[in-house]
């Protein structure tokens, strides 16, 4: 990088401790970002990166520790305080009003805008777009914009409020490769202009690509702060995970049986009624794992929802075994032996109900759990005790509401419920997102066991490494289409990357 970051401290956080019930999210963290530098905050999901930055932005209050902005000791009680101190944050989930225009969103909540948005605002927007390449149409409605454009609106919003310190929380997770490149160049230009950028990520390549320095967090603690130029990918990975990574799972060669799921020319719309799944065809056989890779938002969610009956497909066919199950309601599909581990864990659980009740969420009307109209709690409790042991769910008791469990244990509860009956087809979306390494490993192991027992498994994940590790065959989705399906052993990372970016298509016999 050409720009030389100054030596002035922009942000300093000392001895930050933040406890949540049952979790020590930040354990005596000290962190410093210098004026004009891009400082990457690297760590796995749950390492405490977002918590730390939410403290800096005034969303959380630290239990212990001090914050200094440009050398001044400050107390940040709310985002309002943070904004006044020149701190801006772009959250993973954008906080925009979809029906309002870009300009309206940018000035929203600012004083002196009775007749918003003023002409001055518009001029300033144009200035930003010229200076940093943040081009967005101020008149466009936010819901019409792509994820990348919405993110630019969020950045402009922060800059408009005078942010000299900008926190970007996992900014690339929703973007396509092209949009990522644009973002990185915007970040560079802003840093060159003297802005301090804190870049939260768990992707090593991004750290090496964009940052001047990097702070690595693991389990709520700082494990290292280094100059990016003096480090490399393997050592960063080791710091982040705490041991040698790129472990291989014990994976037997598959014993592929009969075709279980056949998808033929499937089309489906997204929530905005735009085509999201376009002419998708593939099949999954008993005893194999088909992985679907792709950048988030390329139709994977809509595809999975269409397969499990939560979304109507508009064209095409879904067969399970010999049976046509296109657009059947969820109950019918459940009865066909289709089990589904949803990407958003809250979809598959009722947080306030007990572990035992969540374990029968789908089987509550079958014997022995129901006898006539009544629930048989003796059977429900016995079932819960059995599964809790078998799947090593760590919970204070079967009566504990699941919202009190950790992410890994919640995922085990879902997997226990979805797999205890040996389903014919298991569909798992982002099965390990947000989990720590240990939980990730054991969840993946569980999926492989299912495959070895003869279940047809469909895994959808944005984590390419996960797809590579688990799958016997890999399909890549881009803008609603399958760009190709390749056997895992022949998979070339570079070609898969190009397919994910839509730059390459591997013809498959099924696609005919």
């Amino acid at each position: 990088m050409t720009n030389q970051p100054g030596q002035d401290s922009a942000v300093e956080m000392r001895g930050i401790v933040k406890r949540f019930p049952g979790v020590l999210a930040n354990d005596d963290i000290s962190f410093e970002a210098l004026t004009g530098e891009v400082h990457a905050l690297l760590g796995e999901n749950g390492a405490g990166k977002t918590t730390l930055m939410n403290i800096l932005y005034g969303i959380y209050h630290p239990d212990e520790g001090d914050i200094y902005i440009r050398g001044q000791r400050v107390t940040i009680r709310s985002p309002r305080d943070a904004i006044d101190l020149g701190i801006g944050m772009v959250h993973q989930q954008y906080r925009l009003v979809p029906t309002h225009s870009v300009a309206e969103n940018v000035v929203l909540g600012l004083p002196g805008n009775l007749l918003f948005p003023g002409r001055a605002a518009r001029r300033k927007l144009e200035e930003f777009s010229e200076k940093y390449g943040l081009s967005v149409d101020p008149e466009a409605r936010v819901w019409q914009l792509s994820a990348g454009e919405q993110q630019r609106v969020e950045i402009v919003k922060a800059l408009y409020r005078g942010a000299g310190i900008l926190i970007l929380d996992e900014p690339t997770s929703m973007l396509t490769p092209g949009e990522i490149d644009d973002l990185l160049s915007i970040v560079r230009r802003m840093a060159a202009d003297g802005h301090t950028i804190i870049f939260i990520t768990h992707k090593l390549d991004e750290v090496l690509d964009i940052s001047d320095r990097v702070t690595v967090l693991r389990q709520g603690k700082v494990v290292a702060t280094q100059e990016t130029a003096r480090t490399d990918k393997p050592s960063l990975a080791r710091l982040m995970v705490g041991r040698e990574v790129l472990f291989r799972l014990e994976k037997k060669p598959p014993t592929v049986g009969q075709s279980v799921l056949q998808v033929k020319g499937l089309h489906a719309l997204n929530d905005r009624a735009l085509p999201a799944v376009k002419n998708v065809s593939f099949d999954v056989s008993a005893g194999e794992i088909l992985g679907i890779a792709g950048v988030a938002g390329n139709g994977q969610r809509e595809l999975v929802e269409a397969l499990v009956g939560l979304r109507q497909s508009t064209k095409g066919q879904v067969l399970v075994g010999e049976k046509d199950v296109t657009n059947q309601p969820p109950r019918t599909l459940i009865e066909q032996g289709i089990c589904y581990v949803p990407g958003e864990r809250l979809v598959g659980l009722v947080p306030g109900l007990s572990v035992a009740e969540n374990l029968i969420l789908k089987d509550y009307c079958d014997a022995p759990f129901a006898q006539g109209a009544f629930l048989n709690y003796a059977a429900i409790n016995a079932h819960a005790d059995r599964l809790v042991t078998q799947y090593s769910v760590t919970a204070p008791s079967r009566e504990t509401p699941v919202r009190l469990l950790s992410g890994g244990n919640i995922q085990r509860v879902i997997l226990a419920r979805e797999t205890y009956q040996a389903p014919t087809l298991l569909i798992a979306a982002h099965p390990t997102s947000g989990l720590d390494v240990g939980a990730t490993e054991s969840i993946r192991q569980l999926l492989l066991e299912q495959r070895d027992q003869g279940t047809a498994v469909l895994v959808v994940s944005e984590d390419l490494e996960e797809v590579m590790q688990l799958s016997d065959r890999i399909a890549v989705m881009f803008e609603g289409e399958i760009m190709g399906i390749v056997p895992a052993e022949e998979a070339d990372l570079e070609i898969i990357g190009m397919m994910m970016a839509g730059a390459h298509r591997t013809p498959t016999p099924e696609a005919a």
Partner: protein
Amino acid sequence: MNVPLHVRIQKRLAVPRWIELSTAIFSLLLALAVIAVLFRALGVNPIVAYRKIFRGAFGSLYGLSETTVKAIPLILAGVGLCVAFQARVYNIGAEGQLLIGAICATGLALAFPDLPAWLLLPGMFFVGFVGGALWASVPALLKARFHVDEVLSSLMMVYIASELVNYLVYGPWKGLSEMGFPYTDKFSPSAQLPRLFRTRIHYPTLILGLVLAALAYVLIHRTKWGFEIRVTGENPEAARYAGMNYLKTVLLVMLLSGGLAGLAGVGEVAGIHYRLRYPQGVSPGYGFTAVIVAWLAHLNPLAVIVTALLIGGLLVGGDAIQVALGLPVATIHLFNGVILLFVLGGELFTRYRIRLEWRRE
């Protein structure tokens, strides 16, 4: 930093029973304290007023019996609302469903005055339930099919029901022997519910209410429909994912709560008035007050029995202070409003732990 005092709000992991109970009581006391200020402003000594309310409601056999009389419709409607609110279906129209129940029962009583009581009275409860349920099915279907907000639609249906009662008692059903009052003719003796001794307690309705409260508890906690209701209430997406039928659940809870409110209406015309009267004459807002009763009971149908008696007592005591202290009718509405506000506000303290901390500089 100039104020070293910090307010910390933390989500509670688990809500212990005693906290639920103590916040309910504390909210009630706080509401009474606020109302005391209002009494003061009206030039009434609040201690005198509260004593009068308590004496009026619970201090005599007559008071107790009247409290029970008011509690009967509150129990029936409140139990129904517990079921609906458990599914997060916000039926605000119990008042209208109650009136429709009263209309249906009246229709049957006027059409077949000569049927024996053992046939006519159960028949009136039956048509009252069906009428209330059908009235509630309109907002239910609108919600489940077209995502129409049930709060608005069920509330608007109240006014329609109310005007329907007006139309009937001023028009086609106007009693010949009622000297121009907007009443129907008096029911035949076989359409009148028996009362306990010399009180106005129409005990068959009371027993019905108590039994239904117990059944509703069992329904919610021990049956698969109750499971569907709780899952739908807490996470509708999970309910869909688990293959539960959203339409069915919304319809079920709305029909039940509407039907129970309808039963309350039957009790009023067959047990108290022996005729249909103008809407406020049938129910002084029992359907709305039942919302407070249900929330105060934390949506537990068994607890509704207690909260209904409590609020019923307030209504009776309110009447007492109206007479004794010459306070306007609106006082008691104010009373109810303040109590609901504090009960709902008190929820914050059950869900969150709030601590004040001094921070050293």
